[in-house]
């Protein structure tokens, strides 16, 4: 019984590792293909615009802008403080993230949500 199980296990191992490699090789090739085909067409899939309801799920630009502006100000001040320190990409990325301020429960935002559920 043990040997029978082991024999079965060998089959499972062979077929299993084979299938895992097969699947991932296919995925690898698919990524290469996607990267090749879609490199130039990325502009076509532009970032989502403000939707028809005038409401986005994301931050409200105005307030976000304000906050972002402030964030930049802080970042710049810090940079000065650090006297030309290693001011890297990270900072920019984080400034962007400030935008995820929740706009509150304003009416139009509510409508934006609402519309998506009816």
């Amino acid at each position, binding site marked *: 019984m043990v040997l029978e199980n082991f024999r079965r296990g060998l089959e499972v191992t062979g*077929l299993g590792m084979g299938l895992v490699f097969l699947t991932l090789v*296919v995925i690898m090739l698919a990524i290469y293909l996607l990267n090749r085909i879609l490199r130039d067409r990325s502009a076509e899939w532009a*970032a989502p615009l403000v939707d028809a309801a005038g409401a986005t799920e994301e931050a409200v630009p105005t307030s976000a802008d304000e906050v972002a502006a402030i964030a930049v100000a802080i970042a710049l001040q810090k940079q000065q403080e650090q006297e030309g320190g290693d001011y890297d990409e990270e900072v920019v990325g984080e400034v962007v993230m400030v935008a995820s301020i929740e706009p509150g429960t304003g009416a139009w935002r509510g409508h934006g949500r609402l519309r998506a559920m009816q």
Partner: protein
Amino acid sequence: MEPLALERLLIGFSGLTWQRLVMMGVGGILIWLAIKREYEPLLLLPIGVGCILANIPGTGMLEEGGLLKVLYDAGIENELFPSLVFVGIGAMTDFGPLLENPKYVLLGAAAQFGIFGTLLIATLLKFDINQAASIGIIGAADGPTSIFVASVLAPDLVGPITVAAYSYMSLVPIIQPPVMKLLTTRKERLIRMPYTLRPVSRATRILFPIVVTLCCSLIAPKAAALIGMLMFGNLVREAGVVERINQAAQNEIANIVTTFLGITIGSTMVADRFLRWQTILIIVMGLVAFVLDTAAGVLFGKLMSLLSGGKVNPLLGGCGISAFPMSARVVQKIGHDEDYGNFLLMHAMASNTSGQIASVVAGGVVLALLA
């Protein structure tokens, strides 16, 4: 009051066998590991609580209509909870590094050998083939996949297998380094891999989860639920137009399901199923699985290094498992410790995320071959 009622009243004490006491101790240890050592606290703490509750005599919580049974039927029996957890994981995972370096996908495949190697060893230890496969799946280094597979092939072993999987995932920073160092030369570990940011188009990021779903599901249909939910979560993340679902997946759904997943898994750890020699074997086999994962990954990394003319650092193979991002960080640290100018992190991330996908595929393949 009839004697019957009195007897029933004392069931809490009369039914309190030493085995149940031991199991409560096990639950306590899990809670201690969660709080004091911070080993996967979100899972091990509820598991510990579930374990304690399940071993109190006479509560009726495991019987039809009892709380723990209701939760088990609602989420483990039908594999709903592991699937939903995967929606959250998909929404939290950035596959960008992998899309920039597709060749590392292969490292994730190699590192799944731990599953099958452990399966083979387990058959020699007199486990039947389904049990052996369930034990091997600890090597997926992936909680939901372990629960998903074990609950089909060997429901009795779900408890110890899940606990082993989560525990060793916490121990990745301790388990992997010696294996990695043992199997690589210092020269290999010193290989530097410059990282150049290659922009990945939004279309690629959006199509990636769909393509992965199709590839995996066609080759391993039994993996469709898990990979489908993982990639649904990732699509939701990358789509950018369904932020409400994205947030729900990462927060509401993930938090609620995680809470109940742990308690429910813990509730399967009842004394008469857990207190066997088998359990100790499973715990040991789990460690073997993680070691074999790491070894197979590193060896395959050496092969890639050889074929690429020494441009690939073999350490990357070691993080082709699903324990993300701990494993990638282990590789970064080892490389960095040897050479302060060596930054392997982004490459390691690619390998590590490919391990995420590969582990699910492996789980599906095992189910397809044995279920």
